[in-house]
Every structure is written in C-alpha cells, then in structure tokens.
C-alpha cells in the first residue's frame, strides 16, 4: 500500500487525459448501480459547483489507469469515504472517450491527489439558474453512464 502511494507521488502523469484512459467514480449508494447491466446510474456522474474554482461545474473522477487495484481503493479511503455518507461500496470505471463523446472534457488538476481529475465543460450560462440548466447535465450524464462498468469493492478495511 505504501509502495503504491510513493509510486503515485513520484509518477509523472500525462498532462492531458487520453481518450483511452480509464477513469473512475466512487459509488456509495446501492441504488447507484444498475443491476441488470452492471453499470452505474447517471446520477453518479452529475456535476457539482466547486466554490474554489469560481463555482465551476465539475464531476470528480480518479485517473485509475495509473493505479493498482489497491491504490484506487486507498485513494477512495483517503479522499472519498470520510466525506460521503457511507464508505464506497464500489466504483464505476469508464474510458475518457465517453466523456469527450458527449462534448465534455477532463481537467487533470491533480488535487487533492495526483490522479485526480474533473469532468468539466458542463452547460453553464451566467444569469441562468441551475434549475433551468440541470436537464442538459442529466442528458449528458445519461449518455455516459452506460459506459461506466460497476466494480464492486473487495477490500473494505479502508
């Protein structure tokens, strides 16, 4: 585990997220998994406003291509579980190309950990309230979600 973390700190990641990169979003609610197709619900990909980035709309993801299985869950324990209502039960894995296909992009900000990125480029318009924009986000998230395969969390010690 420690070795994964040290590798993670020293690794040089590509400055942009490649289309064939695997990205992950953590899932803490059982009903965010689509049982029949073993994918995730679109709700897990919906954006939030980040006050630290001038209220930019972002969906937080992990560039899991560069991590081992243990490394992904270590990041989940450190950076997701303690803020979520419950520890993650799994994650959704998808390729970055599905994000690009719907006209969104990825900002690999590397904060709060090296492999962190945000899905950005969500429809936003100054002066238009979120409750008149949200349908755009829903439509894009609905198109991406079927391409994010659900992976059950095996090690729950985190």
């Amino acid at each position: 585990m420690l070795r994964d973390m040290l590798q993670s700190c020293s690794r040089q990641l590509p400055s942009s997220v490649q289309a064939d990169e695997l990205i992950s979003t953590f899932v803490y609610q059982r009903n965010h998994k689509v049982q029949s197709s073993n994918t995730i619900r679109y709700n897990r990909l919906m954006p939030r406003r980040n006050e630290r980035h001038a209220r930019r709309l972002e969906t937080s993801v992990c560039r899991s291509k560069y991590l081992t299985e243990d490394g992904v869950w270590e990041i989940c324990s450190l950076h997701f579980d303690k803020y979520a209502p419950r520890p993650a039960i799994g994650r959704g894995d998808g390729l970055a190309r599905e994000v690009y296909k719907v006209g969104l992009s990825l900002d690999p900000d590397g904060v709060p950990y090296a492999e962190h990125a945000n899905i950005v480029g969500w429809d936003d318009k100054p002066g238009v309230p979120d409750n008149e924009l949200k349908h755009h986000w829903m439509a894009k998230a609905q198109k991406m979600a079927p391409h994010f395969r659900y992976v059950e969390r095996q090690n729950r010690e985190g």
Partner: protein
Amino acid sequence: MTTTIALRQGEFWRKGDEYLPVSEGSRTIDRARQDTRNFLSNSASDWIPTIEGALRAIREDRFADNLEGAAPVTDGTIELAERIAISLFEMLPKGTAVPDLMAEQDGEICLSWMVDDRRIFALSIGDHKKINFAGQFGKMGEVHAWQPIDTTSKSALESSLGDVARYVTKLFPPVALVRSSG
C-alpha cells in the same frame, strides 16, 4: 400461480393469473387489451407504499452527504416529490412500473424509470416550482428540458405533468399485442 397467454387470430395477451378463453369473443379480447397495455401489468398497485418507503428513507438520510457542494433535501422537496409521484401514478396507464426515487447531491429528488441502460427517463424535483427532465429512448431519440409546474391544485399539477406522463409512456410502449395481417 400461472400466467396464461391466450391466442386468437395472431393476437396474444396476458391477463395475470386469469385464463380468458378465446370463445368469449371480441369484448373480452378488447377488455383484456385495455387491461394489459404493456407487460408490466398489475405492478402499479404497489406504487404508493414504495414511494412512501423511498421518501421515508430520503428523509432519514438527507443530512448525511458531506461531500463538497452537497445540499440537504428539504421538507418542501419531499412533499412535492410525493405529490408529483401520486399524480403521475394516477395519470399513467395501469401497469406502469414504479419509479426509483433517490436524493440527489443538490438537494433535489430524482424520479426515474429505467427499462435498460439506454432507455431511461428521469425527472428532478426541487422546491422551486420547476422540474428538469431528461430521457433516452434508444432508437426513438431523446428529450431534455425544464418546465415550470403549477402546484396550486391537483388538476393544475396534473396539467403541468402532461408532457412528463407522455414521455414515461413512451418508455413503456404497449408491446403485448401483435397484430396479424388477416
């Protein structure tokens, strides 16, 4: 407990546990056709307890999300979600599947119907007199929009939800009937 399918001149339908003999004639057939507009027959009777249970769970869990940007679900949103769900239950064809309800990170409540991961319709309800909805209908296209809703009376609310009901119906087209050419 068995489900019986009766066949007549290329038409078939399902009527729960009840067998409808072909000899009863066209009135029976028409009645059965109305009763079984899609394959999810008899599931609608379970809407209300399911909705109430889901909203109870949302109410109990609503302050738990501490992720950045999360907002709690208000009593007003829960109450509105219940009113909308009940209205849709009354508007939609008998047998329409019960929606999934879940709290969203922005404090709204999502009602969604999913046939498979490429056919989904969802609406998002917040305490602001507007709803957002989006649907993917496979080869039949997609839709997304927001609209105001009038909650001043039951009929006004139902009138506001007309488009939503049509889209949900589009997700569950009547598929029980196969017509013969003859």
